[in-house]
């Protein structure tokens, strides 16, 4: 590990993110905030949903934004940089082990995911108030869950970024990201699936479920949610699996 090179790469990513600030902002927040507005404001305001739904929805949207930002911010640049132009080469040739180049990408992705998640809370609260009641009873657990969610989303981005070619980006979103979002317990709690037992068990393979349930369990614990122990175990498991797979894919892609 070469601290100077690692920090310089983080600075490079921050610089590029700053340069693309407005598109990045739109891409991260537009969709989640539209969901918040339609589901939380319009549907609740018109009586199709009970008022408590606002509080139930916000942690799910936070999970969705974090996972979206983490995956997107790691996968999309990597897909480009590993293409024909091989832009990533100057970082692969920096005096640092190749795995650390991948880890730097993950850390940069985690920071973006955390920024996205933490911004959704005040933004969603502003859009939905009154009626959103968050009760942060275990702040440390919340921080732990948020970090683990950021890590799995950025590691997932690493796996996808090193496995998908530029021609298949659209497919990646329709086949991987979209099902993950719809079956990720973002708009409904996991317990709401009790009438669909097969589905209820199957979605446990979706890491976003643990993210949504974990944030729900720490931000609005009065709603039914998976036990925090199960959430933490699930998130740690997916973090380890995705990070290991991502590092392996990165090596395969980086070295001929």
């Amino acid at each position, binding site marked *: 590990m*070469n601290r*100077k*090179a690692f920090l*310089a*790469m983080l*600075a*490079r990513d921050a*610089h*590029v993110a700053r*340069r693309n600030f407005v598109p990045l902002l739109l891409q991260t927040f537009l969709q989640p905030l539209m969901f918040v507005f339609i589901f939380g404001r319009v549907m609740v305001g018109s009586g199709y949903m009970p008022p408590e739904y606002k509080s139930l929805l916000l942690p799910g949207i936070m999970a969705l934004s974090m996972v979206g930002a983490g995956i997107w911010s790691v996968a999309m*640049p990597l897909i*480009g940089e590993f293409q*024909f*132009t*091989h*832009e990533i*080469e*100057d*970082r*692969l*040739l*920096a*005096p*640092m*082990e*190749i795995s650390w180049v991948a880890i730097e990408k993950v850390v940069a992705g985690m920071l973006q995911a955390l920024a996205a998640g933490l911004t959704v809370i005040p933004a969603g609260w502003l859009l939905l108030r009154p009626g959103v009641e968050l009760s942060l009873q275990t702040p440390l657990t919340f921080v732990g869950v948020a970090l683990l969610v950021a890590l799995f989303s950025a590691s997932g981005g690493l796996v996808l970024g090193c496995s998908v070619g530029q021609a298949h980006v659209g497919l990646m979103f329709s086949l991987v990201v979209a099902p993950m979002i719809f079956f990720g317990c973002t708009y409904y709690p996991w317990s709401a699936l009790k009438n669909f037992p097969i589905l209820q068990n199957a979605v446990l393979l979706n890491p976003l479920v643990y993210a949504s349930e974990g944030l729900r369990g720490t931000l609005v614990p009065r709603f039914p949610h998976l036990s925090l122990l199960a959430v933490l175990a699930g998130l740690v498991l997916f973090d380890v699996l995705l990070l290991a797979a991502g590092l392996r894919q990165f090596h395969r892609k980086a*070295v*001929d």
Partner: protein
Amino acid sequence: MVGIRTRNLRKIYNSSPPFAAGAGGFVSQTLGHKRRKQPKPEIVALDGLSLDISPGEIFGLLGPNGAGKSTTVGILTTRVQPTSGKAWIGEYDVWKEQVAVKRLIGVVAQRPNLDFSLTALEILVFHGAYFGLGAEERTQRAEALLERFKLRDRADQMVRGFSGGMMQRLSIARAMMHDPQVLFLDEPSAGLDPQTRLLLWEIIREYNHSGKTILLTTHNMEEADVLCQRLAIIDHGRIIALGTPRDLKASVPGGFLLRLRFGHHSPDLLQRFQSLAGVREVRATNHNGADLYADRGGSLVPEIANLASVAGVELCDVHISEPSLENLFLHHTGRSLRE
């Protein structure tokens, strides 16, 4: 000063080699007999390459596309894993001590691989930062290099809009940014106009004078001839000749090459050419042709025409080339470098 060593490097690709690392000899093998799919072709890009490049030398790898030049550079710069064999930069094993090796080397790839999210100046400055240069030092160096490579007025532009030649110049400037002991240049003058090529040659020589080792690949014989102190000519992943450009050219029998083409094939006639004064070697080639290696060029033509006319064979074409690396390559492989 740092030298380069390789021992018995082999590289076999199981799928298409990357763009820059051209394919060498094609060896098709059936791997899965029961599969209905096409068998995976194995491509031998390097076939036991051993090299010793002295510290402070400008060394050239000359060969046609797909000879294994880029694969060699890829292995020496940690970017390609050899199938077998070893390589060292200075005392460091390239594959086992990658970080130490990466500190010593600067690399210019065959295709421009600049960071498209940055401006020209930022590319150099961030590169300096990856190598631990201080803020002031990296800015100063970056500005000096932009000046040297005539990119000063483009410093704050995104490189996406740069021409191929400008990207190439910036790639070379970037590789020099951290003042590496060994500089690898893979086809450095491809796509450059003649004026910039001369500038590049001057910069390479100057860099070499400061004690740096330079390995460059090229299929341009002039470049190899004027720039390199020693050359290895490679084909199908093997070294077929090695030495100074002067020694290599002198090693071609006679030096002159006369490429002849006749109306029809006549082994007797070729036999008679052997007895002409100054002719060292006669080789039959395809399409009723013959290659004559000789000590003299034009003065042989009337005698050849005379012998052909006596034998009743029409002489259709004559091409004379003076001693050159091209002739050397032809002599060893029977093919032109450009083929």
